Structures are given as structure tokens and as C-alpha cells.
């Protein structure tokens, strides 16, 4: 394996977050009864015609901008011909020689290094329906078809063969996902089939210029599967090469249960898609003016946001990286930071305690039971001295468990920090009276013993005393 280098290119398919389908006005909503979100157009009935949705082009173009691509002034839809029961027209409406956008890139970070992965093109297409092979009493003889998905708008993002490891591939896939989510182009919910990718994998001897023969692994719908599939392919191909064989160009499928890829069809059996320009649609024109508007309307993208977190909030590189790992996390952090007036503290709570609790709970940021504003409030209570850091740490899991604000919890449990001098003086007097030996030592010059006395006061007050105030009172009384 050490002699070889892997060459990977990814084709990522993402569902655009439009409310309606790309060529008709049927809803794209998920989970409806089979074959209910359909019309003559997306059913491919005889005589029906596609009409391109402007909203889909707008999101496609925003996606391309987020991937640093050049949106083309004119792009053309083409028919991609193949037969499948869930492809009702007998062709997919895609783009071929004139795609929506060209020549982009994304930077990925692996092992502390930044690497630029080229993006060849971004094109638009409609999705097929779904074949249901199981679950019916005659499933041994028939396949059922649900066309609710048919006509869902997709973009396909084709990378250059710039990727050199499974980790880079996963990082790149994740960066694409983040860019699309940040740009509000796609929800990228993998469980709902919003995002999947095909990986082209080949091996060559290190230093070789020519690419080896590639295998294409289709339909990988999780980061883990992508990594597993690439690593399996690397081993499989090296084994073939080492035993003097030749890798054949083919399409393969990943079996998640076995963690293996299996041959689907060879080059000889590959589809000839017989692309030609879609005569039912006119070319797509994106004017310079529209493009300028779209660029102006782009939300802040992950790389820009990361830089701003460092400059504006003074966050460490590492924290900024984690806090921009998803748009939800970044938005959550910013809400907490704004509510607290101490962004660094907010970052610590989000990256530390909150992340820990969420992880243990198997939850993501959007499901956090603690609203970001409560983190802001917690930090304010610490800053104003109403809560000690120790108390805050105690309260935080309770905030998570109940969803209540920190002041409500402190009130309910009587956990408010005692800063009232009268109340504290009383405790201090008691402690001085019951610890004559330490008082003696202090007066004898061993001033460090004050720490012990403060601790006693804190203990007596069940941690609610404000340590700074206690310190001042003790120093005064022991003079």
C-alpha cells in the first residue's frame, strides 16, 4: 500500500431546498403518502411538458457561488436517456455540455494542513422516483414505484480528481455540505436523502503521472460509508495490482452491512446516455444583474465566518473551527455571545459543557434544551458576581435537564451567591472564632492560610458566598 497513492474525485448530489419541484408546482415535502405529490408533469404522462422553476435556478446559482464557481450566463438542459421504472419519462432532465457553473474550489483542513480541492462544474437536474422492492405481500414478484420524489431539484457538484485520501474525501464532502447549508441552498439532511455522493477511486504508483483505471462507487449517503467505501476500494485495487492484475473500469455499489463494494456493471455494460439538448426547455440565462443580486444576498459562508469569529470575538483558531462546523452551531454561538457580552466565555460554554452534554445525549445543536440566550444569561450572572464559576458549573446540567433559565434555577434551589456583607460578616466571625490556630498562624505572618479560612466560609455558606467579598472581609477582620 505504501508504494501507492490514491486518486479520488467526488460527485456530490444535493437536493435544493425549494418548496416545489423543479419542473412543476408539486410540493417537495417529505413523508407524504406514496404518489400523492404528483401531477402529469412529474408523472411523465403523455403530452405533459416541463417548465423550469426560477426558484430552483436561484438556489442552484447560490450553491455554485458558495462553492466559488463561475455561474455561466447561459446554460442548457439536456436529456439523459435510460430506462428504469422509477424514471417516468425514460430520461432524466440534466445538464451536459453547458452546465450552470464551472471552475470552483473549496479548501479543506486535514492533519493541520489546508488543501484546495478543485470543483469542475455544478449542474442542475431532476431526481427520479423511488422503487420499493419490499414490504408488499407480492414483493417477491413485483416492485412498487413511488413518484413523490420525481422532479425534486438537485445539483450535482463534480470535483477535480484532487483528493488523495479517504480523510480528505470526507473533509471535502463535509465542506461541501457546510457551504450548501450556510448558503441556505440545501438542508443536506442525509437521512431524508438530501445529500449523497459517488466516488471515483483509482490507484497509481507514487510519483506516477498517469491516473490508474478508476472504479465508481455509487450512492454513498453518509460520511462513514464514504470513508469505508474508499478504503475498501484502495485495498481491493492494490491487491489486484500487486498480484499483477488490472483494475477494470466499472460501476460498483457499496454494501454497508459488509463494508464492501460489489460490481454493478462493467464499462461494456455502461449506459450510453445519448445526451442531447432538451427541446422542451429554452436555455437558462443568468444575467450579470441577477448574479450581482444573488451574490449580495448570500449569507456569510463558513470560511468567512471563521475569520470573523477570530477577528471580532478574539476566539482561538481551534474554537472558531469547531463553532463554524455547522451553520446551526455558529448561529447558536453568536446568539449566546450577543446575550452575554463575553464571546470568549460563550465559546467555552458551547464548545465545552454544552457539546459534552449533547454528545452524551446523542443530540445536535438545534435540539439543545438550553436556549442560547440562557448561556448568555449564565455568563452575565457570573460577571456580575451573582453566581460563582463553581455554582455555574453546578447549575448548567440542571439548565440542560429542565430547559429553565439559570436565574430561575438559582432562585428555586436557593443557590444565589451571597454578596451581602452583613450576612457574610456573620459567617466570617463564626469561622474566625472556631479556627483560632489558623488565625494565630495568619497573624504570625503565614498569610497563605487565608485560603483555608475562605474555603471554610464557602463551605459554611454551601458555596453561595462570593469568594472575593469573603476574602476582603477576612483580610479586614484579621488585621
Amino acid at each position: 500500500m505504501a508504494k501507492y497513492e490514491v486518486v479520488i474525485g467526488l460527485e456530490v448530489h444535493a437536493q435544493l431546498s425549494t418548496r416545489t419541484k423543479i419542473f412543476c408546482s408539486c410540493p417537495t415535502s417529505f413523508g407524504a403518502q406514496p404518489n400523492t405529490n404528483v401531477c402529469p408533469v412529474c408523472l411523465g404522462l403523455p403530452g405533459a411538458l416541463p417548465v423550469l422553476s426560477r426558484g430552483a435556478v436561484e438556489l442552484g446559482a447560490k450553491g455554485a457561488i458558495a462553492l466559488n464557481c463561475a455561474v455561466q450566463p447561459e446554460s442548457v438542459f439536456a436529456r439523459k436517456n435510460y430506462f428504469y421504472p422509477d424514471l417516468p419519462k425514460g430520461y432524466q432532465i440534466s445538464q451536459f455540455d453547458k452546465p450552470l457553473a464551472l471552475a470552483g474550489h473549496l479548501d479543506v483542513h486535514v492533519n493541520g494542513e489546508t488543501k484546495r480541492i478543485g470543483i469542475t462544474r455544478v449542474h442542475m437536474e431532476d431526481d427520479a422516483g423511488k422503487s420499493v422492492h419490499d414490504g408488499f405481500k407480492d414483493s417477491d414478484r413485483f416492485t412498487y414505484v413511488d413518484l413523490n420524489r420525481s422532479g425534486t431539484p438537485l445539483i450535482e457538484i463534480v470535483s477535480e480528481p484532487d483528493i488523495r485520501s479517504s480523510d480528505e474525501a470526507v473533509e471535502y464532502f463535509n465542506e461541501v455540505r457546510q457551504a450548501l447549508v450556510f448558503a441556505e441552498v440545501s438542508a443536506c439532511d442525509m437521512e431524508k436523502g438530501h445529500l449523497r455522493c459517488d466516488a471515483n477511486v483509482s490507484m497509481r504508483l507514487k510519483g506516477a503521472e498517469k491516473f490508474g483505471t478508476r472504479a465508481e462507487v455509487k450512492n454513498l449517503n453518509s460520511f462513514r460509508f464514504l470513508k469505508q467505501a474508499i478504503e475498501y476500494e484502495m485495498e481491493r485495487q492494490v491487491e489486484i495490482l500487486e498480484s499483477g492484475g488490472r483494475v477494470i473500469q466499472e460501476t460498483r455499489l457499496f454494501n454497508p452491512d459488509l463494508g464492501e463494494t460489489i460490481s454493478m456493471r462493467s464499462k461494456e455494460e455502461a449506459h450510453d446516455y445519448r445526451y442531447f439538448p432538451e427541446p422542451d426547455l429554452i436555455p437558462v440565462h443568468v444575467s450579470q444583474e441577477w448574479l450581482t443580486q444573488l451574490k449580495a444576498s448570500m449569507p456569510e459562508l463558513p470560511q468567512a465566518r471563521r475569520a470573523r469569529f477570530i477577528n471580532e470575538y478574539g476566539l482561538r483558531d481551534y474554537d472558531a473551527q469547531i463553532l463554524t462546523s455547522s451553520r446551526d452551531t455558529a448561529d447558536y454561538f453568536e446568539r449566546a455571545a450577543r446575550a452575554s457580552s463575553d464571546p470568549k466565555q460563550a465559546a467555552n460554554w458551547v464548545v465545552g459543557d454544552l457539546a459534552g452534554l449533547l454528545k452524551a445525549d446523542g443530540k445536535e445543536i438545534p435540539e439543545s434544551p438550553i436556549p442560547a440566550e440562557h448561556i448568555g444569561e449564565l455568563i452575565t450572572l457570573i460577571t456580575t458576581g451573582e453566581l460563582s464559576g463553581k455554582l455555574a458549573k453546578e447549575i448548567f446540567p440542571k439548565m440542560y435537564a429542565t430547559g429553565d433559565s439559570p436565574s430561575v434555577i438559582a432562585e428555586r434551589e436557593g443557590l444565589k451567591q451571597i454578596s451581602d456583607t452583613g450576612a457574610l460578616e456573620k459567617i466570617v466571625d463564626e469561622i474566625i472564632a472556631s479556627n483560632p490556630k489558623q488565625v494565630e498562624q495568619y497573624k504570625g505572618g503565614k498569610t497563605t492560610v487565608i485560603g483555608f479560612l475562605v474555603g471554610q466560609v464557602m463551605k459554611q455558606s454551601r458555596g453561595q458566598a462570593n469568594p472575593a467579598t469573603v476574602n476582603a472581609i477576612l483580610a479586614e477582620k484579621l488585621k
Partner: protein
Amino acid sequence: MNIAKLTIPEVQDGLRRKQFTAVELTTEALRFAQAENPKTNAYLTFSDERALAAAARVDAKLAAGEQIGSLGGVPIAVKDVIVTKDVKTTCASKILSNYIPPYDATAVERLEAAGGIILGKANCDEFAMGSSNENSAFGPVRNPVALDRVPGGSSGGSAAVVAQGTAVVSLGSDTGGSIRQPASFCGCVGVTPTYGRVSRYGLVAFASSLDHIGPFSRTVADSATLLGAIAGRDERDATSARHPVPDYAALLGDSVKGLKLGLPKEYFAGLAPETGDRIMAGVEILKQLGCEVTEVSLPHTEYAIATYYIICTAEVSANLSRFDGARYGVRSSKSDTLSDMYKNSRGEGFGTEVKRRIMLGSYVLSHGYYDAFYLKAQKVRNLLTQDFTKAFEQVDALITPVSPFPAFKIGEKVNDPIQMYLSDIYTITGDLAGIPCMSVPCGTTPDGLPVGMQILTKHFAEDVMFRLAHQYEKAGGFTA
């Protein structure tokens, strides 16, 4: 009332004068059409229920003193490649022999909104592929003028019902001459409007970049009225034009004096006198009406047939993929596997000509051949279009024959696809360029077979075309 000779103004006049109600007229039209149909096989399906319901709506409007629309009460046939909600639409193919669409084509909606009465669905060549109507899975149509001859194709049924008098007007579709050639064979008026003038939504696609819906009628004025009712932008067809629709019928009376007409020399070379003499006699009449006539050249004409059969078959190969037995239409009973279902359903469901074009189209689009065939054909198509653009810088309209020969005998050319393809030689250029063109009757051959004269104008100049045809029709006395 002679129902077989009625025109749109006569129908509307009769309704207004209470000579008949729309329901009475429709009942009689259905009875007459059903009685006469066995002679020609021009109708495949009658839609009595839908027709009578539409007629009742017209009568209700008349009773309420409301406008009944430009087609109010007019009995109409619709080619069976145009979908009609709840009325069987077969495309004259076995594969759709049981297909009942759940929606109406835009042209059908507009036709009914204008008060038109759809009597039924007209026979045609399977999926509109053919020039003789012999490719129908439900038997050929006979030409009402000479029953042993073909009515032309592919809209043979739509032409025959108008010639036979079993509808006042009809809708056909034209991809390479499928309206004009049968109109000329049957001696009626047939119009192919500018590409995009009439929405294709609901027209079962044959070759999408060439398909047009257009009218048949016994008078030029009736075609003008019918086109006016169905033309105009449709948001459901991205290729439909936003260009405003003039009131064609109202402009027919304008003079044609001083209009410049061109005779493209490539369309007359080698033309048999039985057709050529009629066209030249027609040109004389136009001269007498004050038109100036000059010879022009459309130099790329010789490449038109090859260009057409590459582009149209390529589009056919994709357009007909949806007929796979999976969701609608006929599924072969001998289908144990997916691949068998496709092969058997399509093998049993499609006729010879359809299969021939699917194979040709799949070939010209296949990997490694695309540039040599499809791409080159698109370039030639542009050159052919430029020929017309240049010609229309010199003249207002072109006059040509519609077909090199009149209606031929049933069975005469059926085994010779090349001969059959050549019968479209004068009509496919208009489709490739997307310009409006029509066939208007210009007398008969010595054997008494109708001859059609073709008038072509520039994009969206249907008004000029109709005006010329109407004035010519009046002067020539060729009204059916």
C-alpha cells in the same frame, strides 16, 4: 341545413336565429358522423357525452343572452395525439389503446372555452409518424374524395372529417407536413402556425422541436377563427411564444395588392405537370389580385430531408421512452422480468414505422455519432432557417406546391419508406424553420384529385398568410 357543408359563421348564424339549438346541432352532427364514419374510418372515438354537455353550456349562454365564444356550438374533431380528459387518447397506437388521460391539452381547454364542441378523436398515423395514415394501429383512413386512396398523413383523420363533412373544423398536428399534406390530398385548408404560436401542452410529443398543433377547415376564414381561439402564450409550455395574437379573422378582408411573392426555384424543379400546372394557375390568380411575383432561391433545400430525419428521429427516441409498460398503457402479459416487460411491451405495442424511427434516433444520438449526425443536422437546420430569413428580406410570402404528387392509392408506397419520406419534401422545410405555412386548395388534377398550394410567411406573419389565402380562395372559387 346541410350539415356536411356548414362553416363557423353559418353555425353561429343558425344558433342566433334559433334555426337549431347547439344540442340539436350536436346530436345531428354526432348521428351523421357516426353513420358516415365506416366509409373512411376517420374517427377512432366519439365523445358524445362530453359534446352534449358542452352544447348544453352553449345553449344556456344563448338563453342568458351571453357571448357564446368564437367557436360557440361548432362541431370539432381533435386528432388522437392531443390529450382529452376522460376521453380515450390512443395516438393510434396499440401501446396506448386503453389510455384515458386525466387532463386536457391547453388547445382543447381553449377550444372548449371558446364554445367549441368536441365530437370525437380523429385517426392518424401512429404517434403522428407517417404520410398516408396507413400506420394507424386501428386501420387506415380512406380519402373521402377517392375512397381507394390515402387521405395523407399523419393527420389523415383530421383532414378526412373536414372533407367528408363529419366535422366543421378539426385540430391536427404537423411535424414535417402532417397538416398541410393531408389538407392538400383531401382538398381542404390546413394550417401549421409559427412554432410556439399554439401551446404543445397535451400534444403527445413526436419531435418536440418540430411539433405544431394547427387547424383544418373548409374555408380559410374558419381556420383563422380556430387558430385565433387556441393561439397564445401558455405558462405550461416553455417554448410557447409571448407574441400577441392578432384577430386573424378580422384582418382577412385587407387587400393583398402590392404584396411580393417568391417562387423558390428548388421547389419547382422536376415537378410533375398535374401538380405544377395547378400551382402556376394559382400564381396567375394571385398576380391578378395585384401581387408581384419573383423567383427566389432556398439553396439548402436539398439537405432538408436528411436533416429532418436525423433531428426528428433523435427526439422520437427519447420522447417515446416513457411508453414502457410500467405505469400506463399496455403491458405485455409475457413479462416475468423488468427487461422482458420493456422489450415485450414495446415490441408488441409499437408498429413498424415507430420502431424504425426509435432505432434510427437511438443510433444518431449514440456515443461517437452525435457530432457527425445530430450536431451537424442542427447546423444545417440553422442554414435552412437562414435561407428563409434571407428570402423574406425580398418577399412577403413564398408560394410552393404542398406535395410532389396528389393522393396515392392505399398500399402503393407502404413498403417503401424512402418514397414515403419524399412526399414531405416541400413541407418539412417550414417545420425546420418554424415559420407559418398552410395548404389552400387550388383545384384538381385531370383525374379529379385535389391539389394544395402552400403559402409560407415569416415568423408570426400568419395574418399575411391568411389574407393571401382568403383573397385567393374568393378569387379562385375553390371553397369546398
